[in-house]
Each structure stands twice: as structure tokens, then as C-alpha cells.
């Protein structure tokens, strides 16, 4: 991959039709003569737009990414509105999912599909996702689990962003001994499968308070912040991939002319790194962090499933599945709903990541459908014919 999307795009633009408002018609004429499908309408599309706008437009055009955005927003809103966040209470009637209730509808979900979906009329009922073996509300649990997953995802990505970018930037920019030391550190972390290191760190978080006999209030505080702690711990493992990518970007960018000119102008190292090189690596960073976020959802649930991640009193989707997998035959809904939401969250974030990758990659082109290409080639033929007619 070329390392600088903005410059390449600008160069393409220049090559295809020059910059400036007066050349728009000229550009489109050149573009039409390009022939079937080859960059149809590509040049007008980016004419005079900022890099951010170009990326945004490409992102919005990616239907998968749009689906991801809508889904993840809907899920986050649903969970925030029903269960609230922190001290703010949500609107759902059951705010403490650990409370047992008397079974209703034989503990089965009271959520019914509307008639046109083959159900018996839409109804939410008291326990839309059913109840577990001791009568706790599955809906409230799942919603809290979603919040945990989202928290882990966000905190983890911030940690990864900080460590990965710093390590990558330092070793790529300074090279030499710093690079050597930092890369050996990266090698060390990469050696073990993520889930193994994650399990050890997760275990550490659960064991430490009792082992060192901390006071109950500290323990309570730590328990409440469990998702954040786990996210930080996982972030300490997962930064390596980003660090390697940022390093390789820095290695090639630091040889470019604009860095030389900044240095000649007297800019400090810090300024060169943050103001000149880093903005050019944003694409790589954003794409990778977003794909990492999707992986982190699955990782967190997997650790909680094994019992090395989130544990009581915090709730995680993986923990719900592991608690209820023995009850699969009698209460399958306890298994379906958490799993469904894990898949939905991970899938949406994956799609967003894919959309971002396409948006930042200068090589992706909008591929016109066959009909569009035919129409375009007809138009080209016609304009060529009319030009011939005019020249006669």
C-alpha cells in the first residue's frame, strides 16, 4: 500500500484534470473519454474536496459500514435508555438484574413477534428475553452485558491507541537502539496467544483484591470498575499490531521531503512527529483500531466465558452464556439472546472497519453497475459522434 493517501489522491486529481474551479467541465470531458468503467466519474467526485470529506463520502457510500453504524447505534441506545449508565437510572422497570422474580409465562420470553412475522401480535411483556433458572430478568442482564462489551471496546481502543502509536512512532522515528528495544518488547508480547495472556491478566484482576486482603470498600469499587480494568489489561497486550504498523509507516514517511523541510525550518522532533508525520498515518491507525475493536468484543466475551474475565457482580455476555449453557435444552433463550448481541456488535464493528479501510484506501473505486457503464459508454460514443459532426 502506498503510504500517503492524501498526496496520492491529489496527484491523481492533478493528473486527471488539474485543480481549480474553472476546469470542471474539462475534467468531465477527459473522464468521459476514459471508456467503460475506468474511473467513471472519479475525478469530479473528489474535485476541490478536503481529505476528510472524501473519506466521509466514501464511507457513507459503503452500505455495509452504514448498516454497521445504524446497528451499533441502535444497540447502544437501547441498552443506555433501558438500563441507564452509572448513577443515572434507565427506563426499564428492573434496574437490578440480580433480583429473582416469580416466573411468568413459564420463564419463557414474553416478547412476541408481530402478526405479519408469523407471531401472535406484538407484545413486549414483563420479561421479553425470558428468565433464568432462579427467575432473574434476562433482558436486564443482556442489556448490562452489552454495556460491558461496549465499555471494554472503547477503553481498550483508547489504551491501544495511546501505547501502540507512541511505541510505533518512537521506534520508527528514532530507529537505532530505541527501535531495537521497543521491537524486542513487541516480539515478547506477540509470542503468546492473546487469549492466554488475557486469561492470566484477567485472573490477576479477580484474585488480587482477596489475596492482598484489601478492604471491602476498595473491593466494591474495583468490582464496579471491572470492565474498565479488564479493558486496560487487554489493551496492554493488544497494542503490538498497531505499533508495528505505525512503525513501518514512520520508517517510510520520515524519509520524505516534507519531513526534511520541516527539519530545515527548525521544527523540533516532537513537532515533526505529531504535526507532520502522525496526521499522515491516521488512516492506518483508524482502520486498524476499528478492526481491533471488533476482535476485542469477541475476546472479552470469550475470557468471561472461560471465567477469567468479567465476573459477579459485573455482567458480561460471555459470562451469561457460560452460566446458561447447561440449561440449553430447557431454556434456549438464555443462550440465544446474549450470543445474538455478541454477533451483532462484532459484525457491525467489523463492517465499520471494512468501510473505513475502503474509505481511506485511494485505490478503491466505486464500481459502476453494468447498466451505468453501458449508459456511460453510450454517452461517450454519442459525444464522440457529435464532435466528429462538428469538426466536419
Amino acid at each position: 500500500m502506498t503510504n500517503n493517501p492524501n498526496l496520492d489522491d491529489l496527484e491523481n486529481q492533478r493528473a486527471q484534470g488539474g485543480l481549480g474551479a474553472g476546469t470542471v467541465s474539462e475534467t468531465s470531458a477527459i473522464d468521459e473519454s476514459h471508456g467503460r468503467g475506468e474511473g467513471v466519474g472519479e475525478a469530479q467526485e473528489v474535485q476541490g474536496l478536503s481529505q476528510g470529506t472524501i473519506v466521509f463520502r466514501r464511507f457513507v457510500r459503503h452500505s455495509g459500514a452504514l448498516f454497521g453504524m445504524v446497528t451499533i447505534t441502535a444497540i447502544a441506545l437501547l441498552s443506555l435508555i433501558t438500563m441507564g449508565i452509572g448513577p443515572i437510572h434507565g427506563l426499564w422497570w428492573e434496574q437490578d438484574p440480580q433480583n429473582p422474580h416469580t416466573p411468568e409465562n413459564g420463564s419463557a420470553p414474553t416478547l412476541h413477534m408481530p402478526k405479519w412475522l408469523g407471531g401472535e401480535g406484538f407484545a413486549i411483556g414483563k420479561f421479553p428475553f425470558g428468565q433464568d433458572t432462579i427467575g432473574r430478568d434476562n433482558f436486564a442482564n443482556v442489556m448490562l452485558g452489552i454495556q460491558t462489551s461496549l465499555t471494554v471496546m472503547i477503553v481498550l481502543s483508547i489504551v491501544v491507541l495511546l501505547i501502540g502509536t507512541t511505541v510505533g512512532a518512537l521506534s520508527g522515528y528514532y530507529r537505532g537502539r530505541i527501535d531495537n528495544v521497543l521491537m524486542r518488547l513487541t516480539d515478547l508480547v506477540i509470542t503468546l496467544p492473546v487469549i492466554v495472556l488475557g486469561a492470566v491478566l484477567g485472573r490477576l484482576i479477580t484474585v488480587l483484591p482477596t489475596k492482598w486482603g484489601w478492604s471491602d470498600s476498595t473491593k466494591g469499587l474495583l468490582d464496579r470498575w471491572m470492565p474498565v480494568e479488564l479493558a486496560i489489561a487487554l489493551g496492554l497486550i493488544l497494542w503490538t499490531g498497531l505499533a508495528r504498523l505505525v512503525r513501518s509507516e514512520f520508517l517510510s514517511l520520515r524519509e520524505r521531503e516534507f519531513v526534511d523541510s520541516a527539519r530545515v525550518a527548525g521544527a523540533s522532533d516532537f513537532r515533526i512527529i505529531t504535526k507532520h508525520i502522525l496526521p499522515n498515518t491516521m488512516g492506518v491507525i483508524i482502520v486498524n483500531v476499528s478492526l481491533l475493536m471488533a476482535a476485542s468484543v469477541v475476546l472479552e466475551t470469550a475470557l468471561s466465558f472461560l471465567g477469567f474475565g468479567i465476573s459477579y457482580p459485573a455482567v458480561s455476555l460471555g459470562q451469561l452464556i457460560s452460566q446458561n449453557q447447561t440449561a440449553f435444552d430447557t431454556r434456549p433463550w438464555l443462550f440465544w439472546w446474549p450470543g445474538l448481541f455478541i454477533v451483532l456488535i462484532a459484525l457491525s464493528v467489523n463492517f465499520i472497519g471494512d468501510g473505513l479501510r475502503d474509505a481511506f484506501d485511494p485505490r478503491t473505486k466505486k464500481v459502476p453497475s453494468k447498466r451505468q457503464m453501458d449508459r456511460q459508454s453510450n454517452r461517450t460514443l454519442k459525444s464522440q459522434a457529435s464532435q466528429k459532426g462538428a469538426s466536419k
Partner: protein
Amino acid sequence: MIRFLARRLLTAIGLLLVLSFMMYALLSIAMDPLDDLRISTALNKQDLINSRIRALHLDWPWYRRYASWVIHVLQGDFGMAWRTQQHVNDILPGAVKTSVQLVFAATVLALLIGVTVGVISALRQYTTFDYAITFVSFVLYSLPVFWVAVLLKQFLAIGVNDYLVKPHIMWPLAIVLALVSALFWAGALGGETRRKLITFAVAFVASLAALLVVMGTNWINEPQFGPLGIAVIGIAAALGVTALFAGMHNRRALYAALTTAVVGVGSYLGLRWFFFLYSVNDGILFVLLLIAIGVGLLIGFLWGGPDRGVSMRGGALVALVMSVAVWLDQLMWNYPDYFKALGGRPIPTMGTSTPNFTGDYWLTSLDRITHLVLPTIALVMISFAGYVRYERGAMLEVLGQDYIRTARSKGLPERVVIVRHALRNALMPLASIVPPDFIAMIGGAVLTETIFGWRGMGRMFIEGLRGSEVDPVMIYVMITGGLAMVANLLADLLYALLDPRIRVNA
């Protein structure tokens, strides 16, 4: 080269030492061997605590424990899982074998299927087929492996077992499967609308017929290829291999492949007697496989011609396919006995083998394979998606290169452009992605082993960590770390071998 190897090995050993030191430190913080005693209500609680402290040397500082651990490991004593009083040396060989079996099977399958689908998807870029494959691979990529594994246990295994009690034709299932297969083939083979429709119709009828034969006759309970099936497989393999790697116009290659197929059918009849008269094992079968491949090479050589290598490769590939088919057929012949021995529920959901099950090579192999089915599906489903995405990208990258355009413009047939010029180069990056992926798979096996009750390394690690047993966890860390380093070294070497632009000594 040797200097490079020596340097890398030395670094690896150093890294492993640092890793062990840091992990030991981390584990000594993260583990609490006294946790069950702390909340115990026994009268002699303090005595129990004291005796455990003495037994595990908890009164030593952790670095002293680490030093003693290192010395013991260097002497070949891997310590003890103290809760069960088992020596790690005793558990380890079985655990390693189990895990490697599982991960190896899954990696090979995922690689084969994933790469094939990825390449086809790249060749049909921006078609509905491509979008469908991309979507499916995204869904698979987002599936949590533990969830899938439980689903497989609950639906696939129990469903298949229930079905096998009284096999009958399930029309909806058969039609849906046939439709999916027809859509796949129509999309994968591509072409004009007319050709697609023909492919669709042919694939639909063929799949439906095959499914009806499997479901309707008693085939599913007494499966076999028979001489006819083996012959059909052999000829199909001969035609397919020739079409892909030599082109139908290369008559010598075609005849070499067909001759190998005929020889294969002939030796199948002989081998049936051989298997009937003598008991075999993995070693004998491996030798037989080598002989078969040798015969395939020889046939290709004897057909000769200016392009001997192509014929020889074709013959060897056909021989390989035939050998696998014969092996499968022999397993199938033994299947009814196995079915009876297991009381009619042949897909197990737990463990690596049926307890107290004995039999000859074929029966125990069947037992091993049926136990492998579910965990392998779970692992393959996840990593398959990664390979599809990766190989699609690599293939597209190569197809956009100038030398592909040159190859096309000098009039090479499309088959040669794709197989010789594009595919070979698109496969190269796999050399650097497969070894690390193997390590990730070992990590993924931690989950699969737990769910399917396999006594593998992952299970050893999980139980060790849960029970605060340092020794098994440390050995797991050392083995995985060592494997990772070997894998990375292998990736570099392989890449240097495949890509002449990369020099190892530099």
C-alpha cells in the same frame, strides 16, 4: 545462512528466557494457591496453610522459586500439578499430541477451503458471488467460537445422531442444500447468463440426485464408494487436475493422469484384499501413500514428451487423490461395525475417543475422526474467514500487476495466466501468515478444548490457571512461546526460499 540461523536461534532462546522470567513473575502475582484455605472453616486451618506454604515453597521470594523452577526444567523435570498430584511430565505428551492433532487438522482444512474460495472470489470480483462470500466471511469472522461450539453440540451433533436412528428423505433440507450448491457453482464458474443458468440447472439436479441417493437408499448407514465410485473419482480427478495444471490440449499429461486413475482402480481391488488379510497402522499406510505417489510420478515420466514435469506432477496429484479415496472407502466399509459398537449415535460431543473402545486400526481411526468432527468444524469456521479475506486481497493485488497484463497481451490462455502467473505469486504471502496463524489457532483451541472436553494443552493451561498451579501453566507458556518462535523463523525462511528478492543474510 547458518550465521543467520544461529543468530535467530540465540535470540529466540534469549527471548524465551525473558518470557519465562516475566511470566513467572506475573503468575506469582496472579495466582493464589491459598484461596480455598482462606475461606475454609476447618479447625486446623492455620496448620493446613502452613503445610501448603512449606510444600509449595511460598515462603521463598518468587525469584528464588523461579530459579529453582529453571534448574528443574533444564534437568527435564517439569514439576507437578499439585492439586491432583500429577507429574507434568506424565500429562504433557498426551496433551501435546491431542492439541497438535486438533489444530493441525483444522489449519490444513481451513487453509485449503479458505484459499480456494478466496481465489475464486477474487476472480469474480464485484459479482454477487463475491459479495455473498465477503458477507459470509464477515459473519463467520464475528462469531464467537465458544457460542458456535455449543450450538454445534446442541444442533448438529444431536440432530445428526437423531436422524441416523431412522434415516429418511428430508425434502426441504435436500432442496435447500441443492439450491445452495447450485448457486455456489453458478456463481463460482461464472460466465454469461446462459452459461450460468445451465451451470445452475446441472448443479441443482446433480446435488439433488446425490442427496436423494444418500438419504433415500441405505447408503448413509452402509456407506462405500465401491469400484465404480473409485473409478468415477479417479477419472474426475484426472480430468480436473489436467484441466487446471496442464490444459486439455496437453494430451500426454491427460493420458498420464488417466493411466494413473486406471492403475489406481486396479490397485484398489488388490488393496481391499490386502486390508482384509493384514492389519495395518499409520506407518504402513504412509508407505503405501508414498508408493502410490511414486507410481504416479513414474507414469508421468514414462509418458514422457518435452514437458515431462507437468505430466509427472499430474500423475502424482491423481495418485494422491486416489489414495485418499481408497482410504476413505476402507473407513466406510468399517463404519457399520463402528455404528453398532456405539449404539447408533456415532457423533460424540465430548472427549477425544470413546472410553474403553478397542478395535483394529480402521475402527480406532473412525473413532478418532468422529471425535474430531465437531471441534474441527468450530475451528475451521472461524479461521476460514480470515484466509478467504486474506487470499482474496492477495490475489486481487497480483491480478492488478503489470506482468499479468503482459501475460494476457502476449496471448497466453487465461488458465495459464491465472494458475501460473497469478496464483503462484498470490500464494506466496501465505508463507508469512500461516505460521503465526497456527499459533493463534493454538490459542483458539483453549476454548474449543474446554467446551468439547479434550484433554489437550489448552485444557491443561486453563485448569492450571484456575487451580493456581504454576508448573503446568509455565510449561504451556514455554511450549507455545517456543512454537511461536519456530513458526516465525520458519515463516522468514520460507519466504526467503520462495521470494528471491529477499535475502536472508542481509
